[in-house]
């Protein structure tokens, strides 16, 4: 598994596609979790992990546990997450819990990942 993270609007999905070798004649299938639903691990790229973490917490599921229980399903995936760890502590208790659960999910995924890349201004850099 490859984990790609970075701030909002930094070009993370395009970067993930470039890691998958996307070109004019090749488009990797993407499962975008920011639109709702559960991860479809048959897709090579999964984006919006942060939005999924928020929904998990709202439904009483711990997102790191969700991924741990499905360890064998996402080994081939490129997982894409927005880094939401840099701002002010949210006033809303639900958002606060979601931000923490998101952090713990990313710590777990970064540990398990073969490669971790950070994206900044559209440029990616492998940091693991």
């Amino acid at each position, binding site marked *: 598994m490859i984990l790609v993270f970075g*701030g*909002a*609007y930094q*070009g993370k999905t395009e970067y993930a596609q470039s890691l998958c070798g996307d070109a004019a004649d090749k488009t990797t299938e993407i499962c975008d979790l920011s639109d709702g639903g559960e991860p479809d691990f048959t897709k090579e790229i999964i984006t919006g992990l942060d939005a999924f973490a928020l929904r998990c917490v709202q439904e009483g599921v711990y997102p790191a546990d969700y991924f741990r229980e499905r360890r064998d399903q996402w080994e081939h995936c490129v997982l894409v997450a927005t880094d*939401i760890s*840099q701002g002010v502590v949210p006033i809303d208790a639900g958002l606060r819990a979601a931000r923490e659960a998101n952090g713990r999910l990313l710590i777990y995924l970064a540990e398990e990942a073969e490669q971790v890349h950070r994206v900044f*201004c559209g440029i990616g850099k492998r940091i693991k």
Partner: protein
Amino acid sequence: MNVLISGGCKNGKSFFAQQLAADLAAGRPLYYIATMIPRDEEDRARIRRHIAERAGWGFTTIEQGKSIASLIGREDVDLSGSFLLDSVTAVLENEMFPVALKDGKAEFLGEDRDAPERVRQELVAFARAAAEAGGSVVFVSDGIYGDSCGYSESTENYRRALAGADRALAAVCDRVTEVTYGITEEWK
């Protein structure tokens, strides 16, 4: 050589950028593109402080908070010089959220939805024109993309537009540097 500098706010980006722009000048004209359009006394005080901080560095100040591409072809601007544009953030704000000053007070005129594309194109055009003339531009922007809370629609539009400008500049700049508490990380 064109350079994009970004990173968190109040992290030492401007100081690093000033040194870099002065080094890049190497005897050629050194310009500071002042982008803040003062709206109140707080802004005017900040501008006075910035002017004092730049004293002795040899910068010629150009007041240009909008329409950056209009610097191309101006008689009093030598494009083969070294420019410091601080900041992309302010230029985008000035163009996206224009104000009218009435009796010393700022009155918002609403969001200009065409500004993101226009600003992106003008910044890239200026970078290219300076590079073609043998000059250099140091662009300073701000990393405001790590928050967990959602913002209002217009603020999200602004964050998306600034990221778009940063990415377009990163693509045409020779060097992209992130500054964190004065420490630099090279991305390109």
